[in-house]
């Protein structure tokens, strides 16, 4: 049997084209594919929307986790949704509506279902998702069984409703059922004015990390930074970096029941 002829060396042009293709593939491996516009609810925060592939996916269970900015981000989404549709909040008593108004939420388009127990919260979310009356349902995540989270995620998917669960750290059942997990971490606090009477806490810089994104090919290592600021005229802006991890000192304080 005659020996095989040696494999011909690629030409320099072919070698360059191959190197360019390889570099392009490596570069796009970490990027999040862009989702269709009609399947997302954009937060209108450009860095975050880029990291999510266009916005928060409709028909998904999304968890907002972390130590800062979760409700601020949720309020932002409410503001976006209530520009042209209804939204619902399953309220555990911690809601402060004037803050929502400052975030741009149309309160007349927000249906508030008071639910102070885990069972009531789950049932309220179930009814709201089944009805398809609202485009967004926002709730604090109580401790529920995996089957319940799975059912809520399925209902959200069928109804095309964005279900947002706000929690410090998602337990395993919620983490498994969630389509998107977003981790919010505090980077800097922003103040206006000096200490004391002339000082106001006006916002913070938070970083958001996508821990899981099923619609965009698994966990994309995407980060986004949001800087909230409500500048006062002439006030000096100061920043403070907080490095220590939050303690559980205030975990035992229950949310208020406001009727």
């Amino acid at each position, binding site marked *: 049997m005659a020996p095989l002829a040696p494999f011909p060396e690629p030409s320099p042009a072919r070698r360059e084209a191959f190197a360019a293709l390889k570099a392009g593939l490596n570069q796009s491996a970490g990027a999040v594919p862009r989702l269709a516009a009609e399947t997302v609810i954009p937060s*209108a925060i450009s860095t975050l929307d880029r990291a999510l592939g266009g916005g928060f996916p409709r028909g998904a269970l999304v968890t907002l986790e972390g130590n800062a900015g979760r409700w601020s981000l949720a309020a932002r989404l409410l503001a976006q949704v209530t520009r042209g549709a209804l939204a619902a909040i399953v309220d555990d008593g911690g809601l402060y509506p004037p803050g929502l108004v400052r*975030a741009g939420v149309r309160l007349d388009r927000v249906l*508030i*279902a008071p639910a102070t127990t885990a069972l009531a919260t789950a049932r309220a979310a179930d009814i709201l998702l089944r009805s398809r009356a609202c485009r967004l349902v926002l709730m604090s995540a109580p401790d529920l069984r995996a089957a319940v989270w799975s059912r809520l995620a399925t209902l959200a998917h069928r109804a095309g409703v964005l279900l947002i669960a706000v929690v410090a750290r998602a337990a395993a059942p919620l983490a498994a059922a969630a389509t998107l997990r977003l981790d919010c971490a505090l980077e800097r606090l922003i103040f206006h004015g000096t200490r004391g009477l002339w000082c106001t806490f006006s916002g913070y810089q938070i970083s958001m990390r996508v821990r899981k994104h099923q619609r965009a090919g698994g966990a994309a290592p995407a980060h986004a930074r949001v800087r909230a600021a409500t500048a006062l005229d002439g006030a000096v802006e100061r920043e403070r970096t907080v490095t220590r991890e939050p303690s559980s000192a205030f975990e035992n304080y229950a949310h208020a029941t406001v009727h």
Partner: protein
Amino acid sequence: MLLCISAPDHPRALWEELLDALDAVSPLVDDVRPGLAFLDMRGIAGTPPEWMARTRAILAPLKVPLRLGAGDTKIAARAAAHFNDGTVCAAGRARALLAPLPLALVDVDRDTAERLRLLGIDRLGDLARLPHGPFVRRFGPQAARWHALANGIDRTPFVPRGHAVAIEAALFGEGRADDEAQVFFALRMLLARIATDLERCGKRAGTLALDLELEDAHTHRFEIPLASPTAQERAMLDVVRAKLEGVTFPAAIVGLRVRAGGLEEGGEALPLITGDDFDPQIVAVTIARLEAVLGATVRRARTRPAHVLEERFEYDRFEAPQRTAVAAPPAPELSEAIVPQLRLLTVAEIAVQVRRGEPAFVGDPPQAVLECAGPWRIELDGFPGEPLARDEYDVVIEDGRRCRIYHQGPHWYLRGLYD
């Protein structure tokens, strides 16, 4: 010619019954207020005494003491009734008839009547003789109306009373219903009748009142608002079914009555339906279902200006906005900034150590306060003996938490956390 019927101090229900009976005298009845009504008798055969006799005969079964009078205008007819029962005020005689009557007849308020009495004016004749301009300048714009009425000039329009349409369906004495399937079957039948009646009248129902009579002689009433007035049987049944979800009764149901309320003219302006359009009826069913399950009202928040944090908002019942309002072109794009949200906590006392008049350590174990904003003093309307002010602070503690705390009396409280 107008006929005045004066029958003060009677319950509203009896007055309504009386007005319904007056339809047999004239189709145009002006219900000014309970106890006073006018009938437009133009075009009706007979003379004023005959009309009055007919009115008395029709109202006789009600056994209501009446005063009747007739005149060209409302004030003339009213003066005639007040002057003497059965009086007819001839054209142009109103001023003379009014002259000896008290000021209350033209609805002069009590304070002004007292002031006029001190000035020696206690009859309409005295009032009519006053010069118009100075009287109006002294007693205000309403004095012009009093002066005109005292002179027998009445430009008050005749406002015919609307006819209330009662649309209801009931089922009694047909046996008893022990399970929900039987109740819903009966309800469906009643709502079908209601829907037919609504359609016949060209109306839509805005509310439904459902009365359930139980075997133990108790009656349960459910007021069921419909987000969007409708005449559709299916839509009404959905809402009623949602309202009854989870409700249990101690005895079998032996009677049902459904009454349609909040009637509106039929026909709903529907935009072209798109996937994102919400249906007010679906919202109504959702609200009814949530309320049945949660046992609490589904709410909508409203903000209001107030100094105290807890008073800056209030809740009322959620009502679905108009579909066209929601579908209107959306508001301008929002800016990129997000706004920190305060999450309220149940007010609880918290340990705070103060240095140089400011909170320095918060919580137990204590955490150093990195930043402190405030105090903002808020005056309170407390009970006797309670402190009437509190000082609020926003503090940032070592681990980055942002807290709203306040100082009231000797104690410190945690009100909420920013998130």
